[in-house]
């Protein structure tokens, strides 16, 4: 269905408010002793190391925008960086990490591994990318900021990236003390560019360069809905590496051959999302060219009978899943934050879409922050009924609480759109530059 709503662009003031409120997550969800940040605001949520990486990235944004004092932000960084420095690196089942990597989920209070989670290579990369961002911003010659930078160097330099490579050089996804490396392999385009760049840029234990080629050989360059795109279904894949690395105008071997780059590719991924939402093959409520955003998120679960009753029997609820287009999984669940986090790639389209979605489904914000997902098809009332033209809002099922990854990517991408701060910082990071070059990136700002 073609959206016929009048444009409802998000203006600068609203954007500022949304960015600020997203940042406030990191003030709320932090453990004051360890500095670790919770994965979600839900009860008993552990720390996700990736969310800590986002926290370290957004503290500079908050300082730059005057939302927090520089000294306070530095103190927050120091606290969590010291924690990781001193953490148990034995690889024991209840340790914090091994070989410089960290378990995906940690106890908020002690930092010990929880949920039998895996030692996660990509989440460690996101943590370290955040640490390097902070180190690039807090460059003063004060004792605190000097210590901060030294801690970041220590944490980055002790990661043994080569240990995590398989026979082909591909970086493995995870390791557990119970079973060793996991079977899962990176196949096809995904969020691993920043992982490879950091692994290749290491001055101490750099990954063997063959791994990047071995990974990119699994890419699929597809013409889909008349767009030529390096295909990946969920939207976050087109955002996560891009949040730190300015991928505009620089190309690796693959993108040189395709006369494109990863930034342009994300723009096309947005077009594919919109084309899918317009087609809306499963006839879910709400979908159109201004209401899209299929990505990895928590969503409605079939375990909740009253939700299952509201769904067409041929459909299925997927709970937490990497939702994507055009092949699914798709259960009618969308993520508003994922749309707004696409802002740098297609500002006008994104501002209009995000504005329209917020107007129709205001419940996707709670405490001013995006919930991780909403599902208009599962609205308590008839979701296909026209929404109230006076309020212009419609009902939907809304996820509860907030997720740190969603808030972090939102703050970063809004900032990249507004000032390019994160990109500027990381363009000056010698490890990122070295890693990009070793991965074969050339041109643009790398020249």
């Amino acid at each position, binding site marked *: 269905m073609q959206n016929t709503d009048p444009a409802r662009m998000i203006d600068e003031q609203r954007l500022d408010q949304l960015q600020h409120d997203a940042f406030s997550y990191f003030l709320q969800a932090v453990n004051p002793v360890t500095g670790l940040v919770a994965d979600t605001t839900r009860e008993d949520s552990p720390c996700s190391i990736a969310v800590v990486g986002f926290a370290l990235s957004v503290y500079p944004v908050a300082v730059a925008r005057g939302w927090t004092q520089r000294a306070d932000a530095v103190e927050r960084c120091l606290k969590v960086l010291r924690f990781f420095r001193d953490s148990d690196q034995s690889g024991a089942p209840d340790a914090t990490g091994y070989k410089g990597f960290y378990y995906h989920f940690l106890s908020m209070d002690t930092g010990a591994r929880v949920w039998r989670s895996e030692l996660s290579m990509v989440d460690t990369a996101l943590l370290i990318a955040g640490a390097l961002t902070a180190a690039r911003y807090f460059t003063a010659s004060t004792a605190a900021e000097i210590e901060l930078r030294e801690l970041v160097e220590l944490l980055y330099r002790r990661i043994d990236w080569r240990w995590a490579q398989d026979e082909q050089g591909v970086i493995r996804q995870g390791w557990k003390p119970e*079973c060793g490396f996991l079977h899962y392999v990176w196949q096809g385009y995904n969020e691993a560019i920043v992982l490879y760049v950091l692994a290749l840029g290491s001055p101490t234990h750099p990954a063997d360069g063959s791994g990047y080629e071995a990974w990119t*050989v699994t890419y699929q*360059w597809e*013409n889909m809905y008349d767009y030529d795109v390096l295909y990946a279904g969920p939207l976050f894949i087109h955002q996560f590496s891009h949040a730190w690395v300015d991928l505009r105008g620089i190309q690796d071997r693959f993108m040189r*051959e395709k006369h494109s780059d990863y930034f342009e590719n994300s723009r096309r991924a947005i077009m594919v999302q919109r084309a899918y939402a317009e087609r809306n*093959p499963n006839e879910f409520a709400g979908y159109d060219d201004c209401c899209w955003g299929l990505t990895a998120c928590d969503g409605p679960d079939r375990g909740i009978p009253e939700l299952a009753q509201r769904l067409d029997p041929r459909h299925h609820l997927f709970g937490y899943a990497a939702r994507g287009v055009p092949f699914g999984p798709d259960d009618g669940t969308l993520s508003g934050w994922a749309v707004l986090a696409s802002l740098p790639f297609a500002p006008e389209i994104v501002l209009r879409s995000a504005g329209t979605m917020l107007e129709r489904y205001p419940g996707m914000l709670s405490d001013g922050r995006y919930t991780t997902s909403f599902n208009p098809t599962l609205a308590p009332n008839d979701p296909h009924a026209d929404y109230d033209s006076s309020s212009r809002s419609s009902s939907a099922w809304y996820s509860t609480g907030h997720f740190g990854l969603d808030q972090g990517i939102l703050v970063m991408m809004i900032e990249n759109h507004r000032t390019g701060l994160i990109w500027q910082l990381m363009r000056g990071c010698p490890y990122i530059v070295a890693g990009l070059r070793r991965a074969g990136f050339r041109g643009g700002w790398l020249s």
Partner: protein
Amino acid sequence: MNTSTAPQDAFERERLDNVRPPDWHNPPPADRYGFVVIGGGTAGQVAAYEAAALGARVALIEHGLFGGNCLNVGCVPSKSIIRTSRLYAEMRNGEQYGAQVPLDIRVDFAAVMRRMRGIRARISREESVRRLVAANVDVFFGDARFTGTDTLAVDGTRLRFNKALIATGARPDTPSIPGLAEAGYFTNETVFNLTEAPRRLLVIGGGPLGCEMAQAFCRLGVKTIIAQERPLFLPREERDAAQILADSFARDGMEVRLNARAVGVRVENGQKVVDLVTDGETSTVTVDAILTGTGRVPNVDELNLEAAGVSYDNAIGVHVDDFLRTGNRRIYAAGDACLADKFNHTADASAHLAVRNALLSGRQRVSAFVIPWCTYTDPEIAHVGLYVRQALERKIPVKTFTVPMHDVDRAITDDEEMGFVKIHVKERTDRILGATIVARHAGEMINEITLAMVAGIGLETIAHTMHSYGTQAEGIKLAADAFSRTRVKREIPSPLRRWLQR
């Protein structure tokens, strides 16, 4: 070949009469045969017919049942019960077609299997021993063992040959799981003997056979768990295909255990208790029956191939060159006994090739085969040619034209929108390198791409070829149209482009 059979009804009596007549007596052997075929499955029968038609004196030796895996314990019985299982799935989903869902959908499993046996008996007529004998082939039942470079023995009877073909097929590769043998399990060689459905079934293996059977039994009302050691089903296929299949299984209500390795089986209170390990964590499932579908191994170890100077191993099978010739120039091999691609159609094609190379001094190469295949799940997953990864590893730049089935009108009218057509071409050309189709009838659709590849027809020609509207194969045309649009944009001269853009 397992010769155990299903209940001895009229269908089974007919099938056995066709594929292993109970009153059979081996003929007296000729002094020397121009061509001896070991194995009466697809490859063996095709080769024997062709050699006889060329005028050779031919003998064929079979130690079990004619028709081999495909007819007796493979494609034919599995497709029969898959059809019934689809019908049950459609009945349950009747509402989505605007149809009344029958009030009492009860699976009569015995009837399902009886139908399968009827179909198997009917198709066995085409593969009967008598037909082959009528084509002037001497048929011997018994165990063949080579006794020299140009001789073999069938239960003591000596046969001499000028040329021979090893077409002994393959058998299920049973995983070595402690306690499995003691607990009892089914393979594709025994599962079609069932007349009563197990209440709960664990399928070990997420390859084609495991996936097909798991879905079929699930739809026939069996509470089914499928355990796959790898992170995705059908590891050979591309990620999206495997993902769509996993989603489809979930919709069917199947319990999917990916990255789960079965490490032990025991019997408790008459039930089979299986330990599954995922990332170091052990969980336990309790079922009434276990079906293994973890691959197949060639039947080569009982042939005394050493005496004939033929090298082999138990994993690959008989070692052959590109002309399907073994280390003994008199002896060739075909089908599952030597090929990595163990399909009925590769057995057929390789048998033709081997006969022509053996008897007509042909130089046809097996590497020239364009081999399609299909896994008959719902949706079906079909492939031909190269995967993108294979193309890129060979430094061939590749671009994929993708059409989701939800863009195909007939898929929409039939509520069969799950899947896609992906056609891979060499970039900046219309040369088709390969294709994957995931669709309700992908197996039918892939043949068009195979024909195009064999005939050297490019995507541009497919775009110019009218396809009957109202077919799901129109998805292939839509992919070709997308290709054409990219080419037209590139080929329009700049002045004309500017004029068009006014």
